[in-house]
Each structure stands twice: as C-alpha cells, then as structure tokens.
C-alpha cells in the first residue's frame, strides 16, 4: 500500500501556510503530501489573478494575502483547509483537470458523509449561494464544486507547475461574515473545530485513495524554501500586483 505524508499545522500564520504549500508544490521527488491546516489570524486570501479592487472585502480586512492558486477570495475562518501536492503523473492527478477534481472531491464527500452530509458535484444545477460582485470563491461556482443544501460548501483550486500539482481545498465548518449563507457543517456539528474533523478526513482519504497517511513534517529543504516563499506572501507589492 502506498504511503503518503500527512503534515498538520493548526492555527498557522497566513504567509506560512501559503509558503509551505508552495514549497511542497516545488518539492520534486517528495512523497505525496497532504496538509491539514487552519489559519490564525483568519485571513482573507485572494486568488492569484484577482484584482485587489474587485474584492470589496479586501479593502478593510485586517489580514489579506494573495494565493498562488486561482479562483476567488476565501475567508479562512471556521474551516479546515487541506492541500495535496503530488506529481502530475501520479494517478491522483493524471489525466484532465476535471478528472482530478472528481477524485479529490469523492474523498471529501466521503468524509462529509460521516457527519450525515450528502455532498455532490454541482453539475448544472443553480445554487442559492451565488452572489454577484463580491469576488468571493463561495459566491461563484463551477460544475465541479462540491455542494449540499443547494449551496457551495468546499472552495478549491489547483496550481500546476514543473510536472507537479497542488490542490487546495477549504471545507467550511461554519459560516463567516464575509461569506454568509453558504453550505457549512454547522447544522450537523455545531461548533466543530478543524482538529476534530481532521480524523474523518484522514480516514476518508485513506479509504478513497487506498493509501496510508503517515504523520510527518517537511524536511529541512522544504522548511527553508517555505520560509523564503513566505516572504513573498508578506510583500504588499505581491498582494497588490493586480
């Protein structure tokens, strides 16, 4: 059975979170690495290509960063964030981008099912969580998004570079003021903390992908690179590059 590395970092700083994810994306030859994490402070992250001015909430948010993945802005509070970094040729990511989303979302849906939540790909249905003009990820959806209660509940994006892929996912445990009426786990597990949901997600990944997740840490090279990359995410010029 294949063994993947599981790196868990709760309540980590925004620039650290993004720096470590990008370091794992760059880490040629590393084992498939899953991260479960949360944010302190709960930051607003903009998509790589988003214009700062097009996200009204960014204008006066206390902590704002720009991700290296695309899509809309996410308010990283009341959520479990995960990432999976692997080679493009790994069976998880081989083939088209939509195929890889279907695989990852099947694992997430399996974890949600343990709480009695039936999450499905949006497909062509219309959602009640759509909003114009906010620039927020959860207010705009695509057929590949995971939804329940006719609302989007998982934000996701990928970065593909140098033969490797990093998939980002945000699973909403509760709502945030910036995201409002979206799908969360509040109705089935009030006050659920990311640390408490992590075991179910871990088990679902293991079952869905037929692998074993072994707790680990980034190696010295990855840690060093993460620190370097974190500087970019602290740089106001990078934040306001668009």
């Amino acid at each position: 059975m294949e063994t993947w590395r599981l790196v868990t970092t709760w309540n980590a700083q925004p620039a650290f979170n993004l720096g470590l994810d990008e370091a794992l994306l760059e880490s040629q030859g590393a084992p498939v690495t899953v991260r479960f994490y949360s944010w302190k402070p709960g930051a607003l992250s903009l998509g790589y290509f988003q214009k700062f001015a097009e996200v009204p909430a960014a204008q006066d948010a206390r902590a704002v960063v720009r991700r290296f993945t695309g899509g809309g802005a996410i308010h990283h509070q009341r959520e479990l964030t995960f990432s999976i970094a692997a080679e493009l040729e790994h069976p998880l990511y081989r083939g088209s981008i939509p195929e890889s989303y279907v695989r990852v979302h099947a694992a997430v849906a399996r974890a949600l099912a343990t709480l009695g939540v039936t999450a499905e790909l949006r497909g062509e249905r219309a959602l009640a969580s759509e909003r114009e003009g906010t620039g927020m990820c959860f207010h705009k959806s695509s057929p590949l998004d995971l939804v329940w209660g006719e609302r989007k509940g998982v934000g996701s994006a990928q970065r593909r570079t140098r033969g490797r892929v990093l998939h980002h996912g945000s699973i909403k445990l509760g709502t945030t003021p910036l995201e409002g009426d979206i799908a969360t786990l509040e109705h089935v597990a009030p006050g659920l903390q990311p640390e408490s949901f992590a075991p179910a997600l871990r088990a679902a990944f293991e079952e869905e992908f037929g692998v074993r997740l072994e707790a680990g840490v980034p190696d010295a090279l990855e840690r060093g690179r993460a620190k370097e990359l974190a500087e970019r995410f602290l740089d106001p010029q990078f934040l306001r590059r668009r």
Partner: protein
Amino acid sequence: MRPNDRKYAQSHEWVKIDGDVAIVGITDFAVQELSNGNESDLVYCDLPEAGRTLAAGETFGEIESVKAVSDLYAPIAGEVLETNAAIEDHLEILSKDPWGAGWIIKMKPERKSLEGLMDAAEYEKFVASKKH
C-alpha cells in the same frame, strides 16, 4: 493530424520558425486539458514583457482556467519580441485557433535549430500516451 510546419514540446507548447522569428503557442491538447472543452473556462493569462530573455524550458507566462493556474514554458531559448495582446482579453481565441490567431509570443531565437523538440507525428504519439 496536427500541423507539420512546427515542433512540439512535452509541456505542450509549439514553436514555428517564420524567417528570423519563432512563433510560440500552446497546442489544442493543452487548451483542451485547461478548459475541458469550454472556451469560457480560460479566464486569465500573464504574458512576458518584450525584451525578456528566456532559457529553453523557462516559465514565460501563466494561464488560469476555472479550476487551475498553469505555467507556460519557452520551448526554445531566445528573446521575447512581441506578445499577442489580443488573447489577454479574449482567451477563447486559444480554443478557436490554437495554431494561428492563438499564438502567444514571438521570439528572436538564440538558435534556429529546433533539435530536441518533437515533430507532429512524435507529438501525436506523446499525446496518445497521456490519454492512457
């Protein structure tokens, strides 16, 4: 069959020599992978400034589809002469005409030789291997 008047990189860019200029774009396969067949799924791209010198294999731009940001790689070494401004606001051109109007950059090649890149038949085989 894809055009035989150009060469192809494993990262799915094509390069065509036209006199002293090398024209670079991405293949129909790359466009399909990025957009899943929906031309509106390509949403943003970042292209290099003219005058930038690129090494073969170096990232020269980035493109965002609805679900992923991917890098664009220079298939050959050279200097960027021009970028296709038309595609920045109309990425659907890449879907409609990846071999012509969907060119991305023009380069002054360091060498005219395109050694190490695939011809159309080799690229066909390469792409076929990716589908399995």
